[in-house]
């Protein structure tokens, strides 16, 4: 266990250092959620006047939860790009040879994704509060909302890690981000679920990310809803993608890095 943690810490330290030393790698993932937040919360706030819109925390808070989860997921996906780059440049091959416990590698990448997202979440939260976002929930509710985002972050990185370790090239980038993007936008992004109509309502109703989103909005509003379902789905997805990423690691090992 100690060796695994040592490997994980070293990988996470390296990834974070690379990130902080390269603004071109750090800034786009930071700007992306801020742009979405500006566009959605600023440009679409009139949607709260749509008949049946029953979220009472204000449209800024309504969109903040979506953008927070999106930033968490993409914080993970962008870490996947770094993993693919490590394989392309041969670093991952050396890492596989030298790590005493290879499972620590996945753990390290997951830890670096979490560190990356915490920095983004801090900026996003400050911006949201600066523009007047109202938080109806108490400390426990807010903790619950960020805990859901942490799960989302780990789902994102474990998915991207599995893809990166199977394809071992940055060209697999669209494969890492497109399904995540689609899954996020097939949830009730702009209005509550019951206001969606047609095929998107049917898809959003069975989309697992809808549970996380609706529950997160319940937390920020101070009226927690579907909490058990959201954490159940989140933990279930993390468990599934742990298997996915570790089987990717086995494939990378079999291919010789």
């Amino acid at each position, binding site marked *: 266990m100690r060796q695994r943690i040592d490997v994980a810490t070293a990988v996470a330290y390296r990834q974070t250092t690379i990130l902080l030393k390269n603004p*071109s790698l750090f800034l786009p993932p930071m700007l992306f959620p801020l*742009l979405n937040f*500006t*566009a959605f919360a600023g*440009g*679409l706030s009139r*949607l709260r006047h*749509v008949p049946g819109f029953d979220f009472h925390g204000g449209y800024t808070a309504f969109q903040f939860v979506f953008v927070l989860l999106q930033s968490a997921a993409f914080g993970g996906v962008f870490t996947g790009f770094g993993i693919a780059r490590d394989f392309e440049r041969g670093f991952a091959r050396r890492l596989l040879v030298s790590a005493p416990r290879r499972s620590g590698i996945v753990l390290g990448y997951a830890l670096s994704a979490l560190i990356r997202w915490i920095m983004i979440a801090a900026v996003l939260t400050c911006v949201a509060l600066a523009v007047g976002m109202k938080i109806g929930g108490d400390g426990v509710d807010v903790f619950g909302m960020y805990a859901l985002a942490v799960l989302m972050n780990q789902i994102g990185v474990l998915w991207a890690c599995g893809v990166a370790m199977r394809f071992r090239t940055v060209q697999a980038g669209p494969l890492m981000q497109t399904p995540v993007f689609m899954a996020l936008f097939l949830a009730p992004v702009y209005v509550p679920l019951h206001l*969606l109509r*047609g095929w998107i309502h049917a898809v959003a109703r069975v989309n697992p990310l809808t549970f996380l989103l609706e529950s997160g909005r319940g937390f920020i509003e101070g009226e927690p809803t579907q909490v058990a379902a959201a954490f159940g789905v989140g933990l279930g997805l993390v468990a599934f993608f742990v298997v996915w990423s570790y089987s990717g690691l086995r494939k990378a090992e079999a291919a010789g890095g």
Partner: protein
Amino acid sequence: MRVFATQVVLIAQRSFIRTFRQPGVWIPPLLFPLMLMAVNSNGLRAATHLPGFPTNSFLDFFLPFSFMQGALFASAIAGTDLARDIDTGFLNRLALTPVRGSALLLGQIGGAVGLGAVQAVVYLFVGLIAGVHVDAGAAGALLILVLAVLIAVGFGTLGLWLGLRTGSGEGVQAQFPLLFFTLFISSMNLPRNLIEVGWFRDIATVNPVSYFIEALRSLIIEGWNAEALLLGFGLVLGLIAVAMALAARQLKVRMART
């Protein structure tokens, strides 16, 4: 003049072939706006219930967004391709030939123009199949295509300037979110008079992208609106002129360096 035209055609041909030889370059820009159009036109359908919303079909309202997004991708492609030419030394070798700078710039956006034209036709075609009704009729549909290609040229030229300025594909890609920001902070999701947040509405009002979108949108949901069309065409021609001037100036700097 004839030599100049030959130079433009040859470079444009190379740019066009290079773009379409790489499916990874042109397929995502073609599909991504369509996916987003499908999702957002349904997800935002509730907005049509707002008092004063100009149409009862959000798809009609949202279709111009696809053209704009396609144009932004064209900008990234044009800029990245030129940056790669700088990186690989192709531009240096070209500088030893009698090719004129203006021919180089006009030719380099060939790929972006080609992609912009294909995108515009595909988006309009898919939109019509999905039930979009162009109020301005067949002539209006044709004008939508012309304006969409001009917008792709405008952003493509801006991409060239960024490519020349940064000299690296990564540098161009890093500027992409900033270009995207101009789209996000426009009237793409709601008409300006329905935007509630004051500062957002003010920025959307001074943002030329709003007028590109509104010119395209006017042909779909209003018919012939001279004011919207004049503003849209005028501003896009202005964008092309300014971006071309910036790129030409940057090309001189780049050539002097090499």
